[in-house]
């Protein structure tokens, strides 16, 4: 019945949605933000541990949401590790473009980690579902807020 939804709900997404990685509040973190999508009620906390060298040592999240938002948060925490703040922001810029624009419309956000880009590509199906873009980007907006010291963000 849902064959043509496999582009959106790829196996990797279903897996990360069901078994999110880096889920739960860690003992140590030095940046944190809460994100909320008021339309659907999704709530998420992102916890970052940023080292003296300015790199993300660890990233975790908790909260509740749909398969897309949970999988996106899970994949994000995996790709953030080891990135500088600038690299993390560049990845966010790329991810946002990927979810909202055709390939030729992407803008340059700075150097990107090709491995991370490949990993995040499983969420590119979201582009065909404008109502679900906010599900996919919620974790990233929240990460951005955590880095910039805003403790609350919303995708509205």
């Amino acid at each position: 019945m849902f064959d043509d939804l496999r582009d959106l709900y790829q196996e990797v997404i279903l897996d990360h949605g069901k078994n999110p990685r880096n889920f739960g509040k860690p003992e140590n973190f030095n940046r944190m933000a809460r994100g909320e999508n008021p339309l659907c009620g999704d709530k998420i906390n992102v916890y970052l541990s940023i080292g003296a060298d300015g790199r993300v040592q660890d990233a975790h999240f908790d909260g509740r949401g749909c398969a897309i938002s949970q999988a996106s948060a899970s994949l994000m925490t995996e790709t953030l590790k080891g990135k500088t703040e600038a690299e993390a922001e560049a990845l966010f810029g790329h991810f946002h473009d990927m979810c909202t624009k055709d390939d030729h419309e992407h803008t340059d956000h700075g150097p990107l980690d090709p491995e991370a880009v490949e990993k995040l590509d499983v969420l590119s199906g979201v582009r065909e579902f404008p109502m679900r873009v906010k599900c996919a980007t919620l974790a990233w907006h929240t990460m951005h807020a955590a880095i910039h010291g805003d403790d609350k963000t919303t995708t509205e």
Partner: protein
Amino acid sequence: MDTRILTNAPYDVDKVRQDFPILTRLVHEKPGRPGKPLVYLDNAASAQKPRAVIDAMAHFMAHDYSNVHRGVHYLSQVATNLYEATRVKTATFLNAPSPDTIVFTRSATEAFNLVASSWGGAHLKAGDEIILSVMEHHANIVPWQLLRSRTGIVIKVAPVLDDGTLDLDALADLLKSPKVKLVSITHGSNVLGTVTPAAEIARMAHAAGAKVLFDGSQAAVHMPVDVQAIDADFYIMTGHKLYGPTGFGVLYGKAEVLESMPPYQGGGDMIQTVTFEETTFREVPHRFEAGTPPIVEGIGFGAAIDYVTALGMDAIHAHEQRLLAYATEKLRAIPGLRLIGTSPTKAAILSFTIEGVHPHDIGTLVDRAGVAVRVGRHCAEPLMDRFGVGATARASFALYNTEAEADALVDAVRAVREFFN
């Protein structure tokens, strides 16, 4: 509830469906991929429009359009008569004692803001209490909070039982306070479907010296409403859920209550004379209708009332209750599905969750099967908290839905479970 005699003619839903042009369309049509027939179960958000409403609005704009209440020319009189005819129809529909007790607004939301601002502003002072219920739509919460921040009123909240029935004992306890001035409660929950015992609530409120307001945005669509029988001081409904256009709402108020209220918005049409020193206002209900009203929408709403009245609200109610029973039984048989709202008195609204699947994902998937449901918090966040859910999926039925469509919903929901397993 009203117990007028049920109509004897069988309800011919196939014939009814022919009145709604949109119901024949396909969704998700793409080159090389056939579309799916639309199964529209998002009626509690907004209902589809019968040809009679569409044609009435188009005909009015093509033949009879003019501003109302002010011109001496021919069309102004024609348009005014047609627009005011809707007031008479609305009064009849709600069994209001007079068309003068019917105030037109641009939405149910505006009607709530009108009562909170005008009646609340004039009659409530710091420390006075109003009682809402936990299942209120945000439109019956936020206007009171705005008033609270201006005047210092106190908002009390009546709970619901686990099946979504209003907790009348708790309401009685809240009414023991001598400070309660208003009970403002839904007549039918947009999430749970719960139909509240309006007459009993009004009796309780009046015995405590409080006025009572009912949010009929859902209830008035699903069953006959008699504002005199339930003794409502205020009753609010909206046009677009009753198969009419958007941009049109109704506030019924008892004559003496409306008379006690100052104007809400100021502007044209609501005044008698204006000088820079002093302005006098028109009589009720026009005092509350500032500016050019939603004229075309009013014509459409009148046509919608004619349409449902011809079918019979009793017959519509009976049809939807059959659908409710049928869909409830089928959904309940799905493992892991939790129905939120199982009150014995319900309108055909089914909110549910599925274990392990977020409502948003349910919505996206069943949509691919052509089934339109609402997912999210339904403008009733406190109620989501009450039932410990972040969101629900909601299927809401209307006069044109069928058992086959309930089957389509159930099949799609079953497939959702399999997809995520």
